[in-house]
């Protein structure tokens, strides 16, 4: 199921050259904000929860998920070099699974670890806020990676569609239409965070059992369907 060579190539595609820069900038910004807030305001559990929820979970994790998830496969399909990989005797589902593992690892490394550090900087994990949001970031990383990897195999405009989902659906619609929150990876992961942190600090609109089953379901179905798409992949020319 896991092919180390494919993994090595994918790591290089995602983290190579300038692409890694954007992945470093976001966590650096989070840590910078967290440090300055701690210096000027001091430890405050509510501010820590707002900052981690509003910036780390709502903006940083989806964005890194989009970059890592689509970056693991979309550029290869885009420039046609995926045929060299597909011509090798490696199962398509193995390719997808390996790329998913890499995307998850990158997303977790660049979103969950900074979230944990920022949480400790902000209030020293008071009321379990840092741990709660780190767990949320870890879980969200898995679901986002699977979702955006699927998008990468389905459409040439994977990044744009992924961003529209992350920004318009989760952020804009989520704040206006309550029903949209049920179908949001962010809320599912927050359901877990809600259970870990002290009551009242973190809120989620989805119950825990539903959230966990939706997270699992989306991840498994998206990975399976991405494998199917790769089996019947047609390389189209440039538009």
């Amino acid at each position, binding site marked *: 199921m896991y092919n180390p060579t494919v993994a090595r190539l994918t790591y290089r595609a995602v983290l190579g050259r300038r692409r890694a820069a954007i992945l470093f900038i976001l966590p650096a910004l989070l840590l910078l904000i967290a440090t300055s807030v701690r210096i000027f305001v001091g430890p405050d559990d509510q501010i820590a929860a707002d*900052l981690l929820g509003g910036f780390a979970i709502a903006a940083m994790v989806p964005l890194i998920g989009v970059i890592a998830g689509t970056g693991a496969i979309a550029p290869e399909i885009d420039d046609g070099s995926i045929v060299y990989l597909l011509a090798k005797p490696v199962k398509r589902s193995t390719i997808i699974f390996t790329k998913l593992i890499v995307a998850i690892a990158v997303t977790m490394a660049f979103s969950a670890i900074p979230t944990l550090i920022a949480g400790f900087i902000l209030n020293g994990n008071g009321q379990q806020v840092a741990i709660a949001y780190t767990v949320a970031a870890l879980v969200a990383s898995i679901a986002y990676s699977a979702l955006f990897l699927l998008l990468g195999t389905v459409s040439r405009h994977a990044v744009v569609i992924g*961003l*529209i989902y992350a920004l318009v659906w989760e952020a804009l619609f989520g704040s206006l239409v309550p029903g949209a929150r049920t179908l949001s990876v962010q809320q599912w992961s927050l359901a877990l965070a809600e259970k870990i942190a002290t009551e009242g600090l973190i809120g989620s609109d989805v119950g825990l059992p539903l959230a966990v089953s939706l997270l699992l379901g989306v991840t498994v179905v998206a990975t399976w369907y991405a494998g199917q798409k790769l089996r019947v992949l047609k390389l189209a020319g440039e538009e």
Partner: protein
Amino acid sequence: MSTQKAQHPQAPAATRIHNIGYRNYDGPRLGRAYERRALFSQSLRGAYGLGRSAKSKVLPMILFAVMCLPAAIMVAVAVATKSGKLPVEYTAYAIMTQPIIGLFLASQAPQSVSRDLRFKTMSLYFSRPIERSDYALAKYGAMASALFILTAAPLVVLYVGSLLAEMDFTDQTKGFAQGMVSVTVLSVLFGGIGLVLAALTPRRGFGVAAVIATLTISYAAVSLIQEIARANDSEGVIQWFGLFSPASLIDGFQTAFLGASSAFPGGAGPDVGVGVVYLLAVSGLIVGSYAVLMLRYRKVGL
């Protein structure tokens, strides 16, 4: 050739190039200005998918419609309720709809410049008599114009609607003019930032992500910090944090000079004195992005 010459000493005198009747081009040479205009209109049309495949028209047209729809609804509501004024100010509209502007810029700036780099068409452009300043100016102008069309269209809808509803003419015209100035500055600023980020990568996907990250993440971070500053009663610093994201720059600029009410927490926008700093920052960024574009195209390849 030299060996042939040695074998046949008389040969060069006997050969000549036959004129087989091809005509030279003696029509008008349209020159640099024409090429600059052609590149400009090509890029501007391309930003809305005109002259490209049907699939690439979908996204810009949807975003354009989504941008204008709220304006039309607002006009309809204002007319139906006979409120006598529009529910939003002209200057507030672009700040409200900035995710859409961001998505438009993120999807269209890379298609404007990244593909030229990736398919190595740059060398073809520069085999013509255009200079790199022509290329940079045409692309920059086209992106800014595309954004201007996107942001000005809903204002026109609001303005026409307000006049049809017989609202106060001078009030509406003044607000409309202020809104137009604001979206012009916004288009030039955003266009420059988007093109610079897109020109740095030949991969379309990464260009898209970089533009979105710069626009929305910086605005989210700035808003969050401003909220925290407000909660801690240090309202004096709110206006200074506004300098750190493009959208809040525009917000502060129009609050200081165009009589807009700020979207900063507590409405604590900058006054004219601090506004000068905003103006300097905006013009610095515009000039800076043109300079970076020029620097970027000093070498045609990567």
